[in-house]
């Protein structure tokens, strides 16, 4: 099962309040497992927010963003029926993406 990602997009006038929930360990590489071994660095590095296919926000983050990250953004010039897509890329090359239609 692919890790779920969830977007809540609330339209206020022509601005969308966006909140996105992500499942990711965001390991800092400093934690140790039960056997005393360091758990390797594993974190989301890049996030992209697109409105109707056009990139509106690009972000680079570090392992210092909390596990299971949650972000809030505001996207202007949106209207009901617009597609909002958020995707991420992590340091292992894994990706995830989700899309919502603004209601």
């Amino acid at each position, binding site marked *: 099962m692919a890790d779920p990602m969830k977007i809540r997009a609330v339209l206020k006038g022509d601005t969308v309040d966006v909140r996105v929930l992500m499942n990711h360990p965001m390991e800092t590489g400093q934690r140790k497992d039960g056997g005393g071994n360091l758990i390797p660095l594993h974190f989301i590095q890049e996030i992209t927010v697109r409105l109707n296919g056009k990139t509106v926000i*690009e972000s*680079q*983050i570090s392992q210092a963003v*909390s596990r299971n*990250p949650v972000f809030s953004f505001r*996207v202007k*010039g949106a209207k009901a029926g617009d597609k909002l897509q958020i995707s991420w890329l992590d340091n292992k090359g894994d990706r995830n993406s989700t899309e919502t239609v603004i209601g």
Partner: protein
Amino acid sequence: MNQSRRKVLQRAGTAGALAAAGVLRPQDLLAAGWNKDAFGAKTLADALKNIGAAGAGDTKDIVIEAPQIAENGAVVPVEVTSNLPDTKSIIVLVEKNPFPLVAKFDFLEGAAPFVKVNVKMGESSNVRVLAEAGGRYYSAVKEVKVTIGGCGG
């Protein structure tokens, strides 16, 4: 990187030509993808230098909403609004973290200069936020005290 920047890079040749084209600033060329140097900087000064934001002036137009006391440093919610006209990016740093640079958000046309992010803080520290607006960097700071709550359970 947005599509128009990528196209310029493909068409143009040298850094000089790009800078002359007036489309890219010198520091953009360092940040092709994830900025290893900036994120790997171990001091605030080095991180700011690597972003190209050394010497940013303080401003009240960056509003940082964060709790003064965090019950746990694993999740510290930080909300930033920039009231500076033409804000292109917001950068979040935790001064006392082993690697101070935490996140950079670039707002292309269509995004308001606003973000909320949960950061990890290793200890009580200033949360420093930079905004890039009108071609310059501005800075604001908020102190967050980190505690450990509860009975350990």
